[in-house]
């Protein structure tokens, strides 16, 4: 059983936002983004990375062990 690579798509959005909001040509007179915008992105980063890790852990674990043999399988 494989887990869909949805996290790849999330990471692409994250990478897009990182570029658009934090990089690119800065023109004089530009107004910087509100702090709230940045907080939103940092939150997004944490969530995306957490879900990416979790999916990776699950893939790795399922490749190595049958589900019943995993310790702490019921910890979720």
């Amino acid at each position, binding site marked *: 059983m494989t887990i869909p690579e949805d996290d790849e798509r999330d990471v*692409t959005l994250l990478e897009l936002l990182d570029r*658009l909001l934090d990089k690119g040509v800065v023109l004089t007179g*530009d107004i*910087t983004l509100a702090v709230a915008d*940045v907080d939103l992105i940092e939150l997004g980063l944490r969530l995306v990375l957490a879900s990416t890790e979790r999916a990776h852990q699950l893939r790795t674990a399922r490749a190595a062990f049958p589900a019943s043999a995993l310790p702490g399988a019921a910890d979720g």
Partner: protein
Amino acid sequence: MASGYYVYAIVGPELAAGAWSPERGDLVGFEESPVRTFGDGDARAVASCLDGPRPAATPANARRHEAIVEALARRGPVLPVRFGTVLADAHTLARSLATRRDDLVADLARLGGKVEFGVLVLAPAWSPADQPGNIQITPDANLGAAHDHVTRLSATTDAAPGPGGPGPGTAYLRARQAEHQREADAAAAARRLAAALDDTLGAHALESRFTAHPARRLLLRATYLVDPAATDRFRAAFGEVRRRHRELRCLLSGPWPPYSFVTAPAETVDSKLHWPRHNPSS
């Protein structure tokens, strides 16, 4: 009330006058306004009029900005402008272009027509305590008091453990020490990995940028400037990195317009805009 011009990209005169005809109005920007070029020098702005408020930083708006930049990039050399750049009027726009003219012309020559790839490397393993749902939010005042307590303990704990076993303060101190050690290990691993990546991926790139351990779960963020003709070789090299480092989670994104390689203006941008750093150099 017109609030100004929203700028998407910088182009040279050849794109403004050549493959893309602004009069055709075939690129539609925010508020469904036609996208046009402004200015008449070596570096011109691609922008649309904005009547309402500045577009919010939502995924949909970000994709729209990006779609316009990518549509331009298919027609010729282009520099992507940071999201949310709104200039009040044509005079401000012209002055802004003039102020940065040298940088923009040099960047168009160096970056126009090039693409960048992003590489994210996640650290290999995280304990369940690292999951966001398990992070305990402690009020700053309590955290400060606990820190003071630990600081006092730290002078004695190592030399003389208490007779009754480690107390909560000692456990906290040990957790903090372990955390610091993990951070240091991750930063060192990130630097080694950056060097390894530079050997493998750098061979197919024109320039590269690294940020070691930019966030808790991120070991490394790397960005590579690549000639479009070399993207297949770059992707193959990335596949090789993935095979060689199976213990890590390596993610590739791109090709992007060369956002990460444009020259920064002389004055510094608001530091609040930068990603949180965990001070890997200390």
